[in-house]
């Protein structure tokens, strides 16, 4: 197994990238290796480092209130994934309470339905999502990954 391939699999095992991202990286690696007439180890053809580095690592939440209150949060995506995976282990009684409380606050998300594969998809989707809210009163909210 090549060092690059091994590194990608390590990242997958460590939860740093999703299965989909690992597949894309491995495909890119295989494509560059098969299409490459250059010697192995070429920095551009075989090295997945730029591809890995290009993946967003943080989720940013920025709130700029018209009254001058600002909130800026930077969350590692591995933490988001780890937190979401934790939801599948929360005891059913506690989870029902969480779901009820969230529903009361207008967020009817049922975490009981979260499966590990859904979480990977969610994270992959999150990496490509950007939310921009400009409120009438001048408040702005931005959520994005970078």
């Amino acid at each position, binding site marked *: 197994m090549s060092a690059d391939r091994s590194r990608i699999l390590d990242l997958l095992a460590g939860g740093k990238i999703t299965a989909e991202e690992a597949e894309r990286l491995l495909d890119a690696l295989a494509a560059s290796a098969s299409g490459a007439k250059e010697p192995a180890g070429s920095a551009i053809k075989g090295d997945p480092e730029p591809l890995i580095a290009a993946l967003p690592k943080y989720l940013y939440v920025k709130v700029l209130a018209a009254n001058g209150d600002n909130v*800026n*949060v930077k969350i590692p995506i591995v933490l988001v994934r780890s937190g979401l995976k934790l939801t599948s282990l929360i005891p059913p009684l506690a989870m029902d309470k969480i779901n009820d409380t969230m529903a009361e606050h207008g967020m009817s998300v049922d975490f009981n339905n979260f499966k590990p594969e859904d979480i990977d998809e969610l994270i992959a989707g999150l990496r490509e999502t950007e939310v921009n809210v400009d409120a009438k009163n001048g408040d702005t909210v931005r959520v994005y990954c970078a």
Partner: protein
Amino acid sequence: MNVPPLVLDLRVVRPQRRPVRLWLPLFLLWPFALVLAVLALAVALVADGVLLALGRRYHHYTVLLVRSFATLGETRGMVIRFSNQETAVDMTVQ
């Protein structure tokens, strides 16, 4: 799993006052956290054993605990900043 957070860097800036910067050495808490973790894991293991023997569907307290510690370990790199017209607070987990 990443290296657990080592330091919490806290900065508070207020107008016309000296800025405050604190490095809270989280690594000093590790030995205490380890003792608590071992005790909690022992209790969770017993609880899971009892739940399993009783035939309950949920018996994952031990895994929940381990994953919770792993999640705490992933907090490294998190940054929280908030500011208003009077105060700016900057908190970084390193």
